[in-house]
């Protein structure tokens, strides 16, 4: 993904695996692959300008599930037999119909009843078919479908809503059409966590505990923990997604990065679900990003003052627009002050730095952080040759 690694640096499995993976990715994302020949080998990377692509190219990865010859044959036959929601058939009738339809082939495929029953059951659980008992016989019919949404709504929400890949599946059914939306500040990396996210949403809606397996990629370790999933936190400034979850073992609400969750298994109902959710609502008044370090008893105060010119009124408006849980105070016509009490004031530092060139006062109750902020400023002056008397 980064584009600076060569084939030789692929240490996962064999070089042949690398070629297989590269071919597979190229098949999905051919238009977005970039190749650069360096002195020590070819570099392959993926480069996507999200403002040019109308749809997330990574959705292709979700459309490549393998299946058996029987799966695909049965699929089209079953929905042909049950072509409208008035038609209902028993398993035996479906078996007879399969034999009749396939008799035109030289070597007709045969299916045993248990395979077909399993497929019907799978489609019932996915909401495609309904099973109704008539005496001792179960009759199958296709489910009522919903109105197919307009493609404009699908074009937009397949990119702008969580689990947008599901909207992309719907768009595939809509056929070819021209998209009229482009997306700025659009991160597509979360796409790969769609299945995990879907499992978490289902548990949230069901007010359930989940067992999650997480990975610490730096240490190469995995761990399993039981948590109560409360809310999905999304950053639209770096694309990361976090699960805010109550962790019974620590009796705390903590963030878990979604791309570090390997699997989700729903557990029992959580009786205190609403209580934990209300607790998170209260905490959000002091969470700048996702960190809940320190706890409510040790909130950290941060404040800074910026000065701007007569033609820079937009700076005050920008503070108002980006203040999140902070407060803005107009000191005078050219000066505004931001202040906040948060769990982790370290989370504000990147944002505060975006006001570099006009910060006239800054104060952190966490003194270490204040010292670090100023040291970093000095380091920046040095990087650009502006320390001491060498400005120029």
């Amino acid at each position, binding site marked *: 993904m*980064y*584009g600076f690694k060569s084939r030789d640096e692929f240490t996962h499995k064999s070089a042949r695996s690398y070629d297989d993976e590269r071919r597979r990715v190229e098949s999905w994302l051919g238009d977005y692959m970039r190749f650069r020949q360096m002195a020590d080998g070819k570099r392959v*990377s993926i*480069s*996507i*300008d999200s*403002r040019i692509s109308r749809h997330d190219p990574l959705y292709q990865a*979700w*459309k*490549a*599930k*393998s299946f058996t*010859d029987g799966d*695909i*044959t049965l699929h089209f*036959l079953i*929905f*042909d037999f049950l072509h409208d929601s008035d038609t209902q058939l028993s398993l035996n009738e479906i078996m007879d119909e399969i034999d009749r339809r396939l008799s*035109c082939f*030289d*070597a007709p*495929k045969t299916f045993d009843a248990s395979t077909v029953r399993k497929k019907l059951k799978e489609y019932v659980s996915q*909401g*495609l078919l309904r099973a109704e008992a008539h005496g001792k016989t179960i009759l199958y019919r296709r*489910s009522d479908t*919903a*109105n*197919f949404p*307009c493609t*404009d*709504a699908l074009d937009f*929400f397949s990119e*702008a*809503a969580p689990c947008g890949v599901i909207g992309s599946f*719907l768009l595939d059914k809509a056929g070819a059409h021209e998209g*009229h939306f*482009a997306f*700025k*500040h*659009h991160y597509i990396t979360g796409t790969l966590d*769609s*299945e995990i996210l879907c499992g978490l949403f289902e548990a*949230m*809606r069901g007010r359930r505990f989940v067992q999650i397996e997480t990975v610490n990629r730096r240490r190469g370790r995995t761990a399993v923990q039981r948590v109560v999933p409360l809310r*999905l936190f*999304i950053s*639209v*400034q770096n694309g990361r997604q976090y699960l805010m979850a109550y962790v019974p073992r620590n009796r705390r609400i903590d963030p878990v990065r979604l791309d570090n969750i390997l699997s989700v298994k729903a557990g029992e109902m959580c009786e205190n679900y609403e209580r934990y959710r209300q607790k998170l609502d209260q905490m959000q008044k002091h969470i700048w990003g996702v960190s809940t370090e320190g706890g409510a008893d040790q909130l950290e105060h941060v404040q800074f003052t910026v000065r701007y010119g007569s033609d820079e009124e937009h700076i005050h408006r920008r503070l*108002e627009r*980006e203040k999140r849980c902070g407060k803005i105070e107009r000191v005078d016509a050219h000066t505004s002050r931001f202040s906040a009490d948060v769990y982790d004031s370290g989370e504000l530092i*990147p944002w505060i730095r*975006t006001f*570099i*060139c006009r910060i*006239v006062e800054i104060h952190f109750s966490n003194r270490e952080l204040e010292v670090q902020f*100023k040291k970093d400023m000095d*380091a920046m*002056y040095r*990087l*650009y040759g502006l320390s001491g008397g060498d400005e120029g």
Partner: protein
Amino acid sequence: MIFSELYGAYYNTVAAILQLAVKRPVTREELRTMIESRAFSESVLTIEPALTSGKWQLLRPDGTTPLEYPPTMPLTLLQKRWLKAISLDPRIRLFDFDDSGLEDISPLFTPDDVHIFDRCADGDPFEEEWYIQTFRLILDAVKNGSPLSIDVKSRRGTRIHLDVMPEYLEYSEKDDKFRLVTFGSRYGKFINLGRILSCKPFQGHAPPGLEDPAAAIDKSVVLELYDDRNALERVLLHFAHFEKEAQRLCGERYRIKLFYRQEDETEMVIRILSFGPLIQVTAPEAFVDLIKERLKMQKSCELN
């Protein structure tokens, strides 16, 4: 389950082929064209022989099918639950969305299940009637390629009249705003929908042209970083939505070239500054000067 063959490129491609085959025999040439246009680049090696050899017994050797009806499939429960979820989003009112059939469906998520914590607070008023009407009028004009007469409020509060040829709508997830991207006008290529005072079909004699005098100018900036404090991952993730090139210089030192548009330059400067000393701009000189200028001004603030 999201990862299912039901949603896969293969099932969709075969459905399209069978759609034709229930009407008339499908030729080999048509088969190949449909596979190439709908599935993955290597799929022709799988789908075509599977259908023609009788491995998948859905197409007879003469190109007809044992199916009697064009293939269709109802929406899955997962698809319905997602549709129900987006029907609860305030932005859905911008679209002509009919939620019939979703009455008894439980949403996959609700707005309260999701919190976007770093979105700007002054997003567009998606639920206000004037905004909805303006949005729909513009979307129709984009689709039909018809010119518009628009009055907007400038940053200085004055009213400006523009005749424009709409190109497409751009949504910023960070700003939570739509902009109309036009084929060019005297005042620039972009119009914020939230600033529009009036919008109607163009009625004049000389419609605005398709020339693009304000075309986006592509620019680039080169950064260098030392992979300390997980800097590499943070930088690449932060700038993930830009076209870029990354290169390892030596050890843990990296060079990244980002491509951006001229109109985003100020945003690019402040986003780079947000990383502090973790990254250094090395080229072009004009961009280095933009950073230096801000640092010099900061130094003059005498922060103690």
